[in-house]
């Protein structure tokens, strides 16, 4: 082949060599099998967010409202009846420090275990 025949040869060779090869069935099968696993999360466009908000259901869920009202009433009764008052009237703390030796309290960790008093 000489240089004059080269352009013609190149055109025909390019057409032959760049043609799609016969499908590799094994590779296709392998790739499809990998795609059959769990798929990643889809990317949702942000412009759909207002639509989601507009679709939101604001109808009252009566069982939830009733539960909330019961909780509020229970808290009110506990507060009025003073059921929680004895927690405030507890005795003096068992390890109360006097005002004079307050500076001597040093919280040193145990040397071996590292536990704090």
């Amino acid at each position: 082949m000489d240089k004059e025949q080269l352009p013609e040869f190149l055109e025909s060779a390019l057409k032959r060599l760049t043609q799609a090869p016969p499908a590799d069935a094994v590779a296709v099968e392998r790739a499809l099998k990998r795609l059959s696993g769990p798929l990643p999360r889809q990317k949702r466009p942000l412009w759909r967010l207002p639509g989601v908000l507009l679709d939101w259901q604001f109808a009252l869920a009566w069982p939830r409202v009733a539960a909330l009202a019961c909780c509020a009433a229970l808290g009110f009764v506990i507060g009025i009846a003073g059921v929680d008052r004895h927690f405030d009237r507890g005795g003096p703390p068992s390890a109360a420090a006097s005002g004079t030796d307050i500076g001597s309290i040093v919280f040193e960790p145990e040397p071996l275990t590292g536990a704090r008093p």
Partner: protein
Amino acid sequence: MDDSDEALMARIARGDEAAFRALASRHLPVMLGLARRILGNAADAEDVAQEAMLRVWTHAPRWQPLALFRTWLTRVTVNLCLDRKRRAPWVALEVVGDIADPALGAGEKAERDERERLVAAAIGALPERQRAAIVLTYGDGMSNAQVAEILDASVSAVETLLVRGKRNLRRALERVIDEDK
């Protein structure tokens, strides 16, 4: 039921996995072949084709049917091929089953096969965008406008890529011819 690509994409956008598998089995073999011809490497091509199909799934809710689905998918695949930084060496495709040419003797056929191997090696040595333009134009028979859309370039830029690609191939072959003499 409408099973066109666009209809399947609409279903995929709503999270329909069965539609995605139908679309993947329809287009994966073609995208695998395209990636194989651009990358020249079967393992990388498989990864790229799979990644392209996964992008179909993840981007389906955002996809707008401004162009044909096939064109968009080809663009995704070609871009993934071009972005592939860590590339395995290019391996020339086997010369696909030649049509028997009674005019060619055994010696002439061997000589032609050898020359085609040289062309295949020269295609492998081309810059990626030139190679992609040549594969899409000669292999898939796309027009320059279609290739421009896929490569995100102007038609004149595609023409330049093709001219430069063919000039590089011609120079490589001329060098071999000169060495033979």
